[in-house]
């Protein structure tokens, strides 16, 4: 099971890194989304994997529970990464609408234009 989770994290990281190295905004956003998945699962896995041990306390005697702390962290991380994605989407949308290009790199010509001003 650990192997499966680790390889999934690795694959998503690799895919995410490849996509954030692309030149247009949309693949970069997709890449960041993939990276957030990978990071969230990674954080979650730092609590070690456990099956059928939900951190819901049983009223009937003592049970064993998985580590709840990483779960709490990841829960907020998921929501925050949604917020981050939303801001990024808005920024890239704005950039595209203002400049008519969704490239993420500054061209050398843009530099020169700035220098002229």
């Amino acid at each position, binding site marked *: 099971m650990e*192997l499966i989770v680790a390889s999934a994290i690795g694959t998503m990281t690799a895919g995410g890194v490849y996509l954030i190295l692309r030149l247009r905004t949309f693949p970069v956003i997709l890449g960041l989304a993939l990276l957030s998945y990978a990071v969230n699962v*990674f954080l979650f896995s730092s609590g070690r994997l456990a099956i059928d041990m939900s951190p819901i306390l049983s009223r009937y005697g003592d049970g064993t529970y998985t580590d709840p702390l990483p779960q709490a962290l990841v829960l907020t991380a998921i929501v925050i990464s949604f917020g981050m994605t939303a801001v990024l989407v808005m920024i890239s949308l704005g950039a595209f609408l203002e400049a008519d290009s969704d490239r993420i790199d500054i061209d050398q010509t843009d530099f020169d234009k700035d220098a002229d001003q």
Partner: protein
Amino acid sequence: MGTSGNLLFLIALLPFIGALVPGIMIRAGRNACAAFTAVPTALALLLLLTLAPAVMDGETVQAEVEWLPQLGLSASFFLDGLGLLFACMILGVGLLITLYARFYLSGDDPVGQFYTYLLLFQGAMLGIVISDNILLLLIFWELTSLSSFLLIGYWKHLPEGRQGARMALAVTGAGGLAMIGGMLILGNIAGSYNLTDILQAGDAIRASEWYMHALILILLGAFTKSAQFPFHFWLPHAMAAPTPVSAYLHSATMVKAGVFLMARMWPVLSGTDAWFYIVATTGLITMVLGALIALFKSDLKALLAFSTVSHLGLLTMLLGFGTQAAAIAAVFHIINHLTFKAALFMTAGIIDHETHTRDIRRLGGLRKLMPVTFVIGTVAALSMAGIPLFNGFLSKEMMLEEASHTDWAGSPYLVPVMATIGALLSVVYSFRFIGHVFFGPVRDDYPSHPHDPPFGLWAAPALLTVLVVLIGVMPFLADGIVAAAASAVTGAELNPHLKIWHGVTPALFMSIAAVGGGAIVLLAHGPLDRAWNKTPRPEAKAIFDRLVARCVSLSRFIAEGTHNGSMSRYLAIFTVASVVMGALAFAGSGMSAPTRGLLPIPAVIGVGWVMLIVATISVVSMHHHRFRALVLIGIIGLTISAGFVYLSAPDLALTQISVETVTIMLLLLALHFLPKDTPRESSTGRRVRDAIIALAAGSGVAGLSFAFMQRDISTISSFHIANSYEGGGGTNVVNVILVDFRGYDTYGEIIVLGIAGFLIYALMHSLLDGPAARRLRNTDYSLDRSRDRHPLMMVVVTRVLMPIALLVGTYIFLRGHNQPGGGFVAGLVVAIALLMQYMASGFAWTQARQRIEYHTMIGFGVVIAGLTGLGAWLFGSPFLTSAYTYVHLPPIEEFELATAMLFDLGVFLTVLGAVMLMLYSLSRIARYAGETVNVTPMDYDPGRASEDGSEKS
């Protein structure tokens, strides 16, 4: 710590407190600003004088408050003879300068700023001389560099002022950095950062193998501050400052800080060959060189600046000799130099003020036009030349006396001859100051009509010249303070008797030679000047500028090489660097053996894994088709939530599903306005490179997490599990952590989410005001549109689903404390329910039925969560402490009421508001892009078909 200790604190603080006032009352005019500067200075001086008698009797006043004892840093001050002398000079001259500046600066200058800087500087300087802790001393040391930067560059409109200020800051700041190193070494050897302890540890320090390092580093600090060769060049350029600044910083205080430090460290560092050869030689060179350059300067202030350099060299040389008599001479000359040099600077300022020029070649004959200034300037200059009956003579005699029996590397003549030449040169430039400015015929081409200034301007230098004469005629007046200070410098009980006539000594002959020779050289000044100007010589400023230019181009090369505007390059560098560092860390440390066995893999999980891997690979390979990639990424998110369910994380699964839904909707909305395909523009090489980076990063992370999961660690989670029900009143530990144990974090997070919502809203608004709006209006999106955008079925279904979704949301919210769920998930679920209405029935229709603004919702959410936290204060508990109770209402089962629920309500509202605000903003853009506004929920409403056949616009 007694009363006197408290007074010391007050003295140290007064200038800083006072500095607050003039800056904020800048409009109150020059008189008010000057008065409010004088009050703290005078007060500090008075307090200081009450401590003076005890200090003069050989006591030291001490005060200490521990600040960071772990670092050996304490706010401790002490006052001994040396400190008293300098503190009196700083505060006394400070008062005179305050008066002088009031009349010198014009009403157009921002006078309040000037006085604030002045007080800041005064406080920093005072701090240096009375600090007992060397770390504290270093802080004040750097503060003087900073505040002098502000003062030198006070006339911001003058390029010379800005350059001079920068140069002074660069040189003295760099020296200060070196000194920090030296002081830390010193503190390490002595085992304490307290000056009083260090001064006791002189033998250990001189014997230490680190002595040379400490010595050189500390001397670098002192030499740069006191403008010693080869760092002397910044001082003349700092003359671009207003004259009161020059008179204060560059004659009396800041440049003396280096001398003060050498005097302070004298018992610890002096007495070795290294000290003698470095310090005395540097001083000697600086003295002669400074005097020589001063000779050929035609700018009055430049002349005085180089003369100051020369006199600072003299002081350094005396301290370098390392004898007690030389130390007495040094202390005495510090006083004398202060009196005549400050007076001379002020005189130069008066001349500049009245004639509008400081060029000696354009002056002359002012004796008749400005008689008062003439008297003041002449007396001070004669003292500088070392003419008997003025105080400069006395200390110069003592210097020559010491020089006459100093042996340099086996040669008994080198130092006396050089010292005589130095004295001779100083006679020449002093006489030149008198002769070429005041004597000679009255001219008719002064840039302005000169006359004596008002009393306020000449009062301060006049007072100083009175001192010059008083000490010169009755030197025993200074016995007490010189004895106290010199004893403090040497650490031995000294009782010097200062007198005018020492008998027929070598020094007398050297003096006569200097004055006579000086008079002769002055006669030949014209030809000498021409010869000097023809001789090529290294220009310190040019060298400095070249050095700076080289540093700038180097940093520009680095900055522009790495920061060239290509974001993909930054990301690649960042990723590669992280991978490399991870690999290094991995290689560097041995790994412990795995402690956990692997869990089995059920078949259904294996299928999920295959789905996830295939989807990820497909996203990457098909990312050029944006819609397809979006659908595929949804598969990944859903697979992950299924994984969360299996791996005992029901809360995460719920959150992941709902966030996934919202994210995809958001991206779909945005994609409407973006290109639908990504062009293939990367070269194959680039793709291979990126693939290698990606695979390296991926396998690194996979290996890391695999290694991680196989090993146990001790966590704090058992505390959370044990206390969740007892302390937090909930059985869902994850939820209790969110709203109780780590409530502070959650509070921060909902605020961040709220800010993200507002940010998007603000971005949308600025977009719709800019050129983007025109583009939106002019682009035709109609081809992308479905012909039936608000289909009947969807409208009906979402309408039915709405109450169900709300019910589910409420249910998830209420059970959150004990079962999977909670404010985050509930907020998202309700947001999805609302979004469905927008999607099915259109923007305008839904918007018209909205009762609460989303901004308000975010605000309420944060406020409710905050108030819940604050509520704990009412019961005397810390912020966000929760309380709970069980309630039993007869018809229903027993249920729980916890304040944490209220907090969760805040979370719920914020999440809902933020998500809705984000999507609302995107829809606003859509509407701007010419989306038709529908007032009815359906494009084709069968119920109305009979009345109006086509509703479509």
